[in-house]
């Protein structure tokens, strides 16, 4: 009997161990670190206080960085949902052969290293980049459009890599719906666009929700893309944390910023989850 009861624990032990060592321990240590203080001459002091949090929450500079980060994440999420949802619907209705080909195309961006992909965007977006050169040669613009070192450029590159997560999540949700519901709506007099808006879209909501949770949290904590495309000028939270740790060497402040980012992303996700589940109660089991 006791052997029976121990078996599930034994089976999950490797995963639990990995989880504890690789995730929980660093998180707890980061949390503890965020309560310590920093002295320019003495380094990290093992004190315990909320000084770092007070510094961050009392400084408009940090508010601007957090605001920018969440705006970038929000814009990325919205654009991904707008692109990904119809695309998932097309995938669902495709011939199985073309569908497998298209899924590979969709997953393409994920197969390329983030640094390579982002440098590719830098080549495209730069003042003397491919896009500006082309527009100038066509005579459409006189002076280059500023795309590098802007939030817009970061959003563009993030959408590129995040859209597969949205498509796969929505696609999974659409596969669970009964295809006869579309026919039923059609037989009741609904035009194709009405069928999509009133029948398909609400049933895709669980997918859009889980997709947007993934995209939002990954975008809010993305580092390489904003670091390369935003540089020193367009700072986001993760690049700020990086700077605190590696340039200023103020680890406790960096830890406090990281913890605030974690908590606020969690809060936003939980709130969004609640809202959507309440609004589309019928679709969620």
């Amino acid at each position, binding site marked *: 009997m006791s052997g029976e009861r121990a078996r599930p624990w034994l089976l999950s032990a490797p995963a639990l161990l990995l989880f504890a060592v690789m995730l929980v321990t660093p998180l707890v240590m980061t949390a503890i670190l965020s309560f310590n203080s920093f002295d320019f001459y003495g380094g990290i002091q093992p004190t315990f206080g909320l000084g770092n949090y007070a510094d961050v929450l009392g400084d408009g500079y940090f508010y601007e960085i957090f605001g920018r980060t969440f705006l970038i994440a929000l814009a990325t999420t919205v654009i991904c949902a707008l692109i990904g949802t119809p695309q998932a619907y097309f995938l669902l209705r495709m011939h199985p052969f073309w569908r497998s080909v298209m899924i590979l195309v969709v997953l393409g961006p994920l197969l390329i290293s983030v640094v390579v992909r982002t440098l590719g965007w830098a080549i495209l977006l730069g003042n003397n980049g491919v896009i500006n050169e082309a527009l100038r040669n066509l005579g459409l613009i006189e002076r280059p459009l500023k795309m590098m070192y802007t939030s817009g450029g970061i959003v563009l590159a993030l959408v590129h890599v995040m859209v597969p997560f949205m498509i796969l999540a929505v696609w999974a949700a659409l596969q669970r719906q009964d295809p*006869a519901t579309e*026919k039923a709506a059609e037989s009741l*007099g609904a035009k194709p666009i009405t069928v999509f808006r009133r029948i398909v879209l609400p*049933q895709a909501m669980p997918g859009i929700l889980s997709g947007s949770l993934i995209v939002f949290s990954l975008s809010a904590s993305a580092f390489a893309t904003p670091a390369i495309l935003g540089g020193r000028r367009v700072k986001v939270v993760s690049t700020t944390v990086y700077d605190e740790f590696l340039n200023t060497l103020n680890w406790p402040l960096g830890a406090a910023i990281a913890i605030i980012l974690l908590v606020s992303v969690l809060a936003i996700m939980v709130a969004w989850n609640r809202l959507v589940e309440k609004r589309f*109660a019928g679709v969620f089991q």
Partner: protein
Amino acid sequence: MAILELRDLTKRFGETVAVDRFTLSVEKGEFVSLLGPSGCGKTTTLQMIAGFETPTGGSIALNGRDLSKVPARARGLGIVFQTYALFPHMTVEENVGFGLEMRKVPADERKRRIAATLDLVHLSHLATRYPRQMSGGQRQRVALARALVIEPELLLLDEPLSNLDAKLREEMQLELRRIQQEAGVTTLLVTHDQSEAMALSDRIAVMQGGRLIQEATPFEAYDRPTNGFVSSFLGKSNAIDAHLEAGGAGTTQLRCGDIRLDAPASSHGPGAVLVSLRPERIEFCGAGEGIVSGTVVERVFLGDQWLFKVKTGLGELLVVRRNSGRREPEVGETVHLSWQAEHLRLLEAGSAA
């Protein structure tokens, strides 16, 4: 006047012919069933009437109007799907009201009609529930209400009861018939369940291999099947291969091996025939009075009935007896069987399924 007229309706998928020159007309207020095994083309026929499949040939007319150029959404048919296809994100009311909303029926009239239809299917008390909070039988009623509320000229039912358990299915059969008659709606049912087709319909169209085999009232199809397939598909039946021969004095006889049977009056000429005999028309009798005798090899108790399998010179025969409380023969016992010659049906040889 016929509401629905199918003429030489044909559907080919590449090389395979799913529906082959199918002709049928359905009168106003009638309940007609398309009955057949899976793959017989009945569902494809329904899909073509609904507008989800394009016919390869032939025509479909609804109330004299040709439907070939009319998209599914403009046909105005009420359809109940096998899976019910309820909209999971809408309440019962919203589901039922969807068709009215599409027709831009004003809100107050919409409300009235939803209430009246939910009343018809006895679901008024569940109007604000979501489909997932309901049982299979209740979902079925919602699907029916959603199809009926638009007052369709024709109601199409695609295996509507196949997802329900046996007891509920019987209840819903009676219920479906009541609702259909109260609403007075012309109905076409597609099913593979012969008892469902017989219980519900005014007329049955039996299909096999994409073709119409027999079109008759349930009683007629059961009692006078036109071929072996219909006789074995509708209810239980004994099929006996025999030879029809002239007997003495203008009578005819059936020869089956060395057994000779009196033949019923029929228009069949001499030659090979398939004889169909319903198990409930066979009786047990005393020794010397029987037409054939045999040994009971199987006995199954069905509550209201006994089912016997008797090994005779004519092969194994099924016999059904009403349970009237008397002692019934046991396995291994010798029994004597008799029947009225008029209960034999002579069918074309080789037409059994």
